[in-house]
């Protein structure tokens, strides 16, 4: 009863609304006893349902992509580990990656990846954060409107161009600075620094978004208490935006780990278990590119092995991305 009342109401109002528009028609109908003759039930519309179904499929393709990635990486990795010479202990315990002579230690590739990423972060985090603070707290509207497009250009340059830059500019620069005997032609330091330059725009723009989202009242209160601009920026605004800044850092690390072309061009071709940034060492992504760039036959050992490396890479970057989303959700300061 309570449910039917509004429906009746709606029917009446629909009737009255249509009255003047379709006057003759409704006059004829009301002669049949005054009951509303309009069928107000939702009409089944086949075309609409088909469209909705198609649109759902479009959305579902993203799920299929993820499933595809997991299936492909998982299946080929299983084939890799199914080989009797390989096992997880060797994979995670060995320090030599030479599949040709059955050495399957992943560590040389992982250390090179971590080293390049660490160097990149040492460049990108301070510079990116400083740029973000400058843009958000110091720069005038006019300065921002000049600087942000420059950063966008930096972000839009293809990574292969950065690779070229690393090999033809950064490496000679490093070799000139530290000596040609110390710095090899291919080295992780050069690749790492250029990856750092590559992710600066990412760090600065994501951090700046977080800093700008801090309400102005906090800044005003801080100034009112006599704090300088620097103290306000570092002790009030930055802590308030910390979750966003931390998320930016983690996304940047994930991006640096997954970066491929720079290390493929500048870091060296050949797994090398070393902790010296000036020596050639191949990262996970660099290894995948080099192996798959040659003539690779399906189901060969090399073919399966790059999928195992890919799976590890996927898991690392995915967990970093999930971590960054979790940090934003968990530690975000709400001011509204």
């Amino acid at each position, binding site marked *: 009863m309570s449910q039917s009342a509004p429906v009746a109401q709606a029917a009446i109002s629909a009737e009255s609304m249509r009255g003047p528009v379709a006057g003759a028609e409704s006059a004829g109908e009301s002669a049949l006893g005054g009951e509303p003759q309009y069928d107000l039930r939702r009409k089944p519309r086949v075309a609409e349902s088909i469209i909705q179904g198609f649109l759902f499929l479009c959305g579902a393709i993203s799920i299929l992509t993820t499933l595809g990635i997991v299936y492909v990486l998982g299946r080929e990795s299983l084939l890799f580990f199914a080989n009797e010479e390989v096992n997880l202990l060797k994979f995670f315990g060995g320090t030599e990656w030479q599949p040709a002579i059955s050495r399957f230690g992943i560590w040389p590739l992982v250390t090179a990846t971590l080293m390049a990423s660490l160097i990149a972060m040492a460049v990108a985090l301070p510079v990116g954060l400083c740029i973000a603070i400058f843009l958000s707290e110091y720069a005038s509207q006019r300065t921002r409107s000049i600087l942000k497009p420059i950063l966008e250009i930096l972000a*839009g340059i293809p990574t292969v161009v950065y690779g070229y830059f690393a090999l033809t500019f950064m490496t000679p620069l490093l070799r000139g600075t530290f000596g040609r005997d110390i710095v090899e032609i291919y080295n992780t330091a050069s690749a790492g620094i250029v990856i750092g330059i590559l992710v600066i725009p990412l760090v600065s723009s994501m951090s700046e978004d977080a800093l700008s989202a801090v309400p102005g009242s906090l800044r005003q209160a801080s100034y009112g208490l006599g704090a300088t601009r620097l103290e306000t920026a570092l002790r009030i605004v930055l802590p308030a935006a910390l979750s966003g800044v931390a998320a930016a850092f983690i996304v940047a690390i994930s991006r640096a780990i997954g970066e491929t072309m720079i290390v493929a061009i500048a870091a060296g071709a050949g797994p090398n278990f070393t902790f010296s940034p000036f020596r050639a060492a191949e990262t996970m992504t660099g290894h995948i590119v080099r192996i798959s760039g040659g003539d690779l036959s399906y189901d060969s050992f090399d073919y399966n092995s790059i999928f195992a490396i890919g799976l590890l890479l996927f898991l690392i970057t995915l967990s970093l991305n999930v971590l960054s989303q979790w940090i934003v959700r968990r530690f975000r300061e709400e001011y509204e």
Partner: protein
Amino acid sequence: MMAVHQQHSAARPTDGLMPSGPAYREQVVARQRRGRLWAVIFQAAVLSGIIALCALLFNILNQSFGYVAIVNNIDPAELAIDGVPLNELTKDQLVGILEANVSAGLMRRYEHDMPFSQRSSENVHELILERVVEPQVQASWGLFESVFARGSIFVEAEERFPGSDVYFRSWLTTSFISKSQSSEPLRAGVRTAIFGSLWVVAITILFSFPIGVGAAIYLEEYAHKERLLNRLIQTNINNLAGVPSIIYGMLGLAIFVRILEAFTSGAIFGVGDQSTANGRTIISAGLTLGLLILPLIIINGQEAIRAVPSSLRQSGFGLGATHWQVIWHHVLPSALPGILTGTILATSRAIGETAPLVVVGASTFIALDPSGPFSKFTVLPIQIYQWTSRPQDEFRNLAAAAILVLLVLLLTMNASAVLLRNHFDRGQASAYRSIYKNDCCHKTSRSDRIRSN
């Protein structure tokens, strides 16, 4: 402010409550000094970013132009007949020179490719340069040196390569753009790679634009946000945007190149190059990049659709339009500029993408233009990668010139995206959008940044 405080300190009721005294004043000065120091540091950080960009551009320009030292196998002056220089000879004379200097087999091959009677004299002249004169680059110098240390270049070239021809060369020329790949740096060009890039990007857009916009419409207009499946799709899309591009390459290698080989090689349609039929074709690459930029297009599309005010939808429903009619006639036209801007930015990302295409198997050396979606291909970034990986300097110069081509292409696309945004923002039906504009653009730029390499 301090001075004011002290002048009136006697009359102030806050006397004794507010800090004062020389120790305090010193502290304030120190704090302000620290503030100024850090302001300089922040500015230096900004400056270092700009310097990095300038260094990158300088480096590329520096390598694209400059002096080269060239040694010819046979001096063109020796080929002159009766004092008439090579480039003024008639065609018959040129053919005669060619005949006298190359093997009969090669002549037959040229005749087979295109009879000499049909060739122009420029063409024969080019063949002579290629086969008889055979210029070889011995060394190349950067633009910076070429401008500021000209003298020493000539001296050095004379010492190291006696008899060499030293002249200023721009590696980026019209013939560089119009010629196909060659193992000779002086004659190599990027036409094949440009065509490859255009083909791949065309497939990418055809695949990802309809699907991406469709998914964005579904998520914004149809999906109930509370339902688990829809939440899963949304989370999933955000995560996909952070997957390294090389992983997409491996996905493409396993799915498109291998499992769908019959389709991607064109075998089931009876087209494609039958002799080397495998799945390493344009369509595999296009679909792989399509999957790669799909999350970007969806996220951008969602933001554009979200920025359409709901009053527009409500008035459409109020007039009795169906859900799809409201979307097609009202929501999409209003959201289109935002969607297109996002798509162009995603496309420029696809054009610069290298790693997934190496994995999918873009061919490294291809001299024939791609003829369709099922042909083998190479793209500009791969060409750059290949040239950069070569040890010889002259290939670095080629790579720099190819990078300039790529950057100009990307700049054109990004500029058109900006123009499009501005054009529609100033357009008539966008009075309401100006309210939402800042919000929309803010978010759009943010989602661009959440992209993997």
